[in-house]
């Protein structure tokens, strides 16, 4: 019974196919709708640009809202970290009463170099020198009677000096003269930009808080 139905359906199907083929209209010389397609492609591209512009405008507007701004900054940092994994941080430390100073050598990324001192000190200086070499080095210089501790932390984009608020040590940082610019920030103070023009240059920055 089931086989009969299948056979019947197959026979009907064959007859229908023959009938359809016999009555099909002739194939016209169909032309590719080039102009309409080109227009559609342009419209699509324009739509993408408009969408991108809307996203940018939205982002700019949202950037004015502090929580959103904080989120965007955080997301950007996360993206940056993912895109460029930080090199293992080299840490050198010098603690109060050790009698010596910490030192670290590392290869800075080409271009900009950021030098961050965590906070101002009651005394001490930061000396930045350029040299004809590819590596950078930093050292904590502790004079007699120096107080407080400090750590030198190498970052993917520079160096951070994690000093105690009562530290009185000085710091010497030697960088390649090929660096484009060095930005120096002490605590939350203004950023000072140093632009090396060759080896042998030296800048001495006072780490005391501005009165």
């Amino acid at each position, binding site marked *: 019974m089931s086989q009969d139905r299948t056979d019947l*359906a197959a026979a*009907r199907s064959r007859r*229908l196919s023959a*009938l*359809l083929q016999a009555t*099909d*209209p*002739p194939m016209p010389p169909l032309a590719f709708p080039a102009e*309409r397609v080109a227009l559609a492609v342009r419209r699509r591209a324009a739509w993408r640009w408009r969408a991108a512009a809307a996203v940018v405008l939205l982002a700019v507007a949202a950037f004015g809202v502090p929580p959103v701004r904080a989120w965007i900054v955080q997301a950007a940092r996360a993206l940056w970290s993912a895109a460029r994994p930080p090199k293992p941080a080299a840490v050198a430390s010098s603690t109060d009463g050790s009698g010596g100073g910490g030192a670290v050598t590392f290869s800075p990324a080409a271009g900009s170099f950021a030098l961050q001192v965590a906070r101002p000190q009651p005394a001490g200086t930061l000396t930045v020198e350029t040299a004809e070499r590819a590596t950078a080095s930093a050292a904590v210089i502790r004079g007699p009677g120096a107080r407080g501790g400090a750590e030198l932390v190498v970052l993917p984009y520079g160096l951070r000096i994690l000093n105690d608020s009562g530290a009185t040590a000085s710091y010497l940082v030697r960088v390649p003269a090929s660096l484009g610019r060095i930005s120096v920030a002490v605590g939350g103070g203004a950023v000072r930009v140093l632009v090396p023009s060759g080896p042998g240059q030296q800048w001495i920055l006072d780490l005391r808080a501005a009165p």
Partner: protein
Amino acid sequence: MQLEELFARHKEELYRYAARFTGDPDLAEDVVQDAFVRLAERPPADDSQMRGWLFRVATTIALDAMRGARRRLALVRGRHDRLPMGDPPPDPAAALERAEERRKVREALAALGPRERAVLLMREEGFLHREIAAAVGTTTQSVGTMIARALEKLARQLDLDEEGAR
């Protein structure tokens, strides 16, 4: 693959399908071209199902056009039986018989629901049941049932069960 290559590859089967589906060769031309414009505007995410996507879009365009242009279709019905360019002048009796046969097939297909018609005609184009199911938005099992039902209806109208019927 470039749009022009896709057009060259699929235009014939799409046209045949659209002409059978709409019963209007002129509208079928528009449907094929509109399907490729739609492809340029909103291409499918999955290129591997391009053929099914084109047939599905052609079906949608054809349905829209048929709904929106019923009056126009009635006015141009006389053009349906156009003859191939360059054919010799037909024998009037044979031409009449042919035209009558086309009219019967067209009316029989038109009597089916759009979904049944799409399922049946896509099967004629060699689509698998699961591809048809994806294109018309139904289950693979339903496709078999719909084809059998559609054939049953057409068999009555077109004498498909008669021995020697074409």
